[in-house]
């Protein structure tokens, strides 16, 4: 009897980006221990080369492939179908698909990590952060984010999410001399582990109810269950879906799963806070969109209202608490919670028609949010002061950095000339209205007005008269200025040509 190969075919072109980053992570670790002490700076450049190099195969793949790799053999795939006479044909059982959605999030992750490495290049010595370990952990986490966006089964999704999170715990605690850094790392670790446990339990229930891990067959079975008569099994599946979404709620720090965020951001090195707020959060949203849009799509009428409530709570609490913050990083932390609420709005659609029609608003918001938030964190890192009062009169001593920060804050607020933020918010409003969620659009409008206060009061401080509390800051290192320049460039491009982000997906 001839036995066909049990080894899955691997399309190396599709998995090139995460492979390059993963191999680069190992190369960086080895390079650092062999480099002489005064040459350790080269590791930062090596990381930048790896991240830029990983974007190349993704550019070659654009606009993405619909067939994936790591697919189940056809003989085995038969086991996964619903049985003879099913109307939907053979569902896809590929674990990794580098389609348009995946490539967009991979670009966001690579670009975000590129900026983070640039931000931290000159401050490693000042903050006494071990260079090799820092870049190894960062690249490992990025590799996880790249896989997560392309994951098309629950197991790959979980492993990728853990690959994003585990190095991040260590990154947060890398300022080993700082008690706050260790506290932040411990809090982040405990909350994240608890959320992973909840998510794994949810996934195991989903698997138990559907007998599948690949998204397409899971969706077929959930559809059959939700219209079928097997009551207990249906409720088991609903419980599993809910718990899985709760796990991702922690990752994107949606209220009520947000409380780790401000402490973790404040304790972590600022570039790592930027990384968590952009790359890690984008990865969480990618997973959330993949689950609600594909695997759990038959249950949109159940998950939609749940996510609508989460979105309303997240933006309201995030913006209200941000009003009272006196610390720059903490304010940005609460602001990212508020922004996460806006991103959740298009996911709250109740039916698959409006979901697929409006999900591009979420994707566009994430792309634009990445540019403006990284920019704001980069300027905060260059000022190197925690109190908001330290920013009084900064426009006198650091006019360019102040102008950049003012622009990013106006983008986050959604006011001209920060047109990017305005377009992103209008797109989300359109999604809420198009999904007949008028109450959510109203809540969001109120929140945008509340957020104006703290963004504008920070901006106003920049142009006020300097006083005793003003930080005395010299010229930033060239790499940091380059990082601010890149984010500024992205912000300006998205402001004058928003279609590049809005039409990306």
């Amino acid at each position, binding site marked *: 009897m001839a036995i066909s190969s049990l080894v899955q075919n691997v399309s190396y072109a599709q998995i090139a980006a995460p492979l390059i980053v993963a191999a680069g992570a*190992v190369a960086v670790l*080895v390079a650092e221990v062999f480099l002489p002490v005064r040459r350790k700076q080269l590791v930062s450049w090596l990381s930048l080369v790896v991240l830029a190099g990983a974007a190349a195969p993704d550019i070659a793949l654009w606009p993405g492939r619909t067939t994936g790799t790591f697919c189940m053999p056809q003989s085995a795939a038969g086991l996964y179908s619903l049985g003879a006479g099913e109307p939907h044909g053979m569902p896809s059982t590929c674990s990794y698909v580098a389609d348009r959605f995946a490539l967009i999030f991979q670009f966001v992750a690579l670009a975000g990590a590129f900026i983070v490495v640039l931000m931290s290049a000159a401050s490693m010595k000042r903050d006494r952060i071990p260079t090799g370990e820092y870049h190894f952990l960062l690249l490992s986490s990025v590799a996880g984010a790249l896989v997560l966006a392309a994951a098309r089964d629950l197991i790959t999704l979980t492993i990728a999410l853990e690959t994003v999170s585990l190095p991040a715990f260590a990154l947060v605690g890398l300022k080993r001399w700082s008690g706050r850094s260790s506290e932040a790392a411990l809090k982040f670790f405990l909350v994240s582990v608890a959320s992973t446990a909840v998510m794994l339990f949810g996934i195991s229930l989903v698997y138990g109810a559907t007998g599948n891990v690949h998204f397409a067959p899971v969706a077929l079975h959930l559809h059959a269950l939700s219209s079928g008569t097997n009551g207990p099994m249906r409720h088991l599946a609903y419980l599993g879906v809910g718990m899985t979404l709760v796990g991702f709620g922690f990752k994107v720090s949606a209220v009520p799963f947000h409380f780790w965020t401000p402490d973790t951001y404040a304790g972590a090195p600022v570039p790592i806070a930027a990384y968590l707020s952009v790359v890690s959060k984008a990865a969480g949203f990618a997973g959330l969109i993949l689950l609600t849009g594909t695997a759990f799509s038959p249950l949109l009428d159940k998950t939609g209202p749940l996510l609508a409530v989460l979105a309303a709570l997240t933006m309201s609490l995030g913006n209200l608490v941000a009003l009272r913050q006196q610390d720059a990083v903490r304010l940005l932390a609460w602001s990212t919670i508020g922004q996460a609420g806006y991103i959740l709005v298009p996911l709250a659609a109740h039916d698959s028609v409006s979901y697929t029609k409006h999900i591009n608003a979420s994707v566009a918001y994430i792309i634009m949010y990445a540019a403006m938030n990284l920019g704001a964190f980069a300027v905060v890192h260059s000022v190197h002061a925690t109190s908001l009062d330290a920013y009084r009169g900064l426009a006198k001593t650091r006019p360019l950095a102040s102008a950049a920060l003012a622009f990013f804050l106006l983008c986050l607020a959604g006011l001209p000339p920060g047109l990017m933020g305005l377009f992103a918010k209008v797109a989300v409003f359109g999604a809420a209205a198009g999904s007949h969620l008028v109450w959510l659009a109203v809540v969001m409008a109120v929140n945008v007005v509340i957020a104006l206060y703290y963004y504008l009061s920070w901006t106003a401080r920049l142009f006020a008269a300097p006083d005793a509390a003003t930080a005395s800051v010299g010229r930033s290192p060239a790499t940091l200025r380059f990082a601010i320049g890149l984010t500024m460039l992205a912000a300006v491009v998205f402001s004058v040509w928003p279609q590049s982000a809005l039409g990306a997906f």
Partner: protein
Amino acid sequence: MTGHGPAVAAVGNTAATGSNGTYFSTYSVVGILLLLGVAFVATAFGANRLLSPHAPSPEKLLTYECGVDPVGEGWAHTQVRYYVYAFLYAIFAVDAVYLFPWATIFAAPGFKGTTLVEMFVFLGFLAVGLLYAYKKGVLAWL
């Protein structure tokens, strides 16, 4: 092991008949075994307490260390250096576990050279970890 067999058989039954009753009723064997175990230990210790004479003296109340009088306290210092070694050992022991299932199938039909290469990629990552530990001076004694 005895409690395991019926449960496994019952999983097969459930798949065939779709009934949950037989599946959970086989757990009664586990429950009875648990009760028997508790009863056995309780009876043995209870009988010992009831039947044995009780005449303590300071020597008898000493901690028993193979008949030698105990010296010092129960707390002992361990060189912190062992911690790293214990860590390395645990990592490699856990990683080695992956070698066993691989060893049983890599020569089986359907698995080609790819499977062999995959394991060496995995071992390569372990070697990099060891190299890193060596260069950081973790493996040097003192």
